[in-house]
């Protein structure tokens, strides 16, 4: 074969284009990667969410006894209520029977997975899932790998929990937070099972479902329309909407030009002083630069008395302190006003990463007593784009956070600096702002 024949043979090898280049598959892969990217960016958020979640769980357990007793006689409702008792709003929605029975079963090599019930409002889609496998018990995790609004074909990406699922017919709840209620949904649930020692994933399979989420309950709306000042931030609280599973608080930032809010915490009390819902400070949904919605668990959709909304705390950062530079010669983090005092113990280290490559990283410690909700930094790459910046490890020791940044040429500019966007707070203030909201 001469060189020309060889060239033609090589071109022929490429005549059959792989199936994975089907445009729908490309879309899936791309969107999945985007989701991973976003999750990567909020690793810190997720870990702190778990801490917040544990705190809420305690509140939920302490206050849910009455409900647990009320529904004890109704086996399925009781069972469902029990597994979502970590969230008052969702638990109350179960008790009030807002759920829609789905009963769809899909069988595969790892057994049969069933979406038994779902509940949805503008904040969350909750799926009650169970699995069987002919008496064989396999245990793993279940994850909403892909969720599509089948009315618009929009592939949704959002935050969700990854609960454990065993093939023992017991329910587990997947809470998928979305941006608005959607009526018709297709969901790919990825079931990953553990090996015998429960130490690693031994197999996985994806189960696909299509369903209508059921009736949408319109929220109860209260107008607050008042201004407040806390931690250098100025806020206007507009409407408070009580949905079946959560309560949404509309917050306008009045001095967003000067100050960025990194966290706000709310709680709701009923007229007996019972705090049935703590705020999820992390779950803010930004609408534009100066408006956002904060969410607290609800539990008040059917409640008729007055409510008290409490603004517990806020964390902020001045806009002109947002840009931070890390000089790789001096290993100093500086902003417009000089050295960033909160960061210390900066060291350059050589480490082996997960791909077994030797890389350099900058380790540093950060005083972490003002904030509990944001990431540390975003990195701006040399094109000015905020790039998939994820500090590669976190460990909390009291109010100190140890973190590091893996060095990558893409981030280092001609002055041997990395330009970062600061995300951790400068100001933190606890407040005791009480807002009465009445029917």
């Amino acid at each position, binding site marked *: 074969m001469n*060189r*020309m024949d*060889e*060239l033609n043979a*090589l*071109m022929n*090898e*490429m005549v059959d*284009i*792989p199936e*994975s*280049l089907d*445009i729908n598959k*490309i*879309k899936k*892969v*791309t969107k999945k*990667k*985007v989701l991973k*990217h976003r999750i990567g960016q909020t690793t810190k958020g997720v870990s702190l969410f778990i801490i917040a979640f544990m705190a809420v769980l305690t509140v939920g357990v302490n206050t849910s006894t009455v409900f647990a007793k009320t529904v004890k006689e109704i086996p399925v409702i009781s069972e469902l209520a029990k597994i979502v008792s970590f969230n008052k709003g969702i638990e109350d929605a179960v008790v009030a029977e807002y759920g829609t029975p789905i009963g769809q079963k899909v069988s595969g090599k790892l057994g049969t997975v069933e979406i038994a019930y779902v509940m949805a409002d503008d904040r969350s889609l909750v799926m009650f899932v169970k699995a069987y496998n002919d008496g064989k018990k396999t245990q793993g995790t279940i994850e909403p790998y892909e969720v599509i609004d089948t009315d618009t074909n929009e592939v949704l990406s959002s935050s969700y929990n990854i609960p454990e699922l065993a093939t023992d017919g017991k329910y587990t709840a997947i809470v998928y937070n979305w941006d608005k209620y959607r009526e018709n949904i297709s969901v790919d649930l990825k079931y990953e099972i553990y090996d015998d020692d429960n130490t690693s994933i031994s197999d996985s399979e994806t189960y696909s479902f299509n369903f209508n989420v059921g009736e949408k309950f319109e929220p109860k709306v209260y107008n607050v329309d008042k201004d407040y000042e806390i931690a250098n931030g100025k806020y206007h609280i507009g409407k408070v909407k009580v949905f079946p599973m959560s309560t949404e608080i509309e917050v306008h930032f009045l001095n967003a030009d000067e100050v960025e809010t990194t966290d706000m915490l709310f709680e709701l009390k009923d007229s007996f002083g019972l705090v049935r819902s703590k705020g999820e400070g992390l779950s803010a949904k930004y609408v534009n630069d100066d408006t956002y919605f904060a969410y607290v668990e609800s539990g008040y959709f059917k409640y008729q008395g007055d409510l008290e909304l409490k603004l517990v705390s806020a964390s902020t950062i001045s806009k002109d302190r947002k840009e931070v530079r890390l000089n790789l010669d001096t290993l100093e983090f500086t902003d417009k006003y000089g050295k960033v005092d909160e960061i210390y113990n900066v060291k350059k280290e050589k480490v082996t990463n997960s791909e077994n490559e030797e890389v350099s990283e900058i380790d540093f410690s950060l005083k972490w007593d003002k904030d509990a909700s944001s990431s540390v930094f975003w990195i701006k790459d040399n*094109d000015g*784009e905020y790039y*998939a910046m994820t500090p590669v490890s976190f460990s909390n020791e009291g109010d100190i956070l140890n973190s590091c940044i893996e060095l990558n040429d893409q981030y280092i500019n001609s002055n041997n600096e990395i330009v970062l966007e600061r995300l951790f707070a400068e100001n933190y203030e606890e407040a005791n702002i009480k807002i009465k909201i009445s029917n």
Partner: protein
Amino acid sequence: MNDEIFFSRIEKIKVKLYKIAYPYFNSESMAVDMVDEAIYQAYLKRRQLKQEEYMETWLIRILMNLCKTRYNKYKKQTGIEEIPEEATYAEYENLPLKEAISKLPQQYKEVIVMKYFGGYTIAEIGKLLDIPQGTIATRMRKALEMLRLDMEE
């Protein structure tokens, strides 16, 4: 650029992207990985692209950079040695063409790949790589000579 426009443009150029990535590794799965990664990176930054007509150029550049970076890593991992520019043909004449292409020094490999697998002209390659057309023509001659491919521009 919205998702619909973005993916409709991807549909038109995906085969070309695949054919450009393939000769770097002579592997279908690695070529697909490169194409997926290039599309993903373009998708993340799609709002930066002000003129949609440059999308192809832009994506090809992203892909070429990815292929170069990944190939360099792959080369280290597998111990592949490039054909030195000063090597005599006798030293590598037994190498199958597809291996010879992937082992060409970077600047020669990219012009061959772009021309014979991407289907671009010398002028288009010059624009894509932001290199003068004369330089591309010189590199092309040298590359063809190294591969003993006797073709006319």
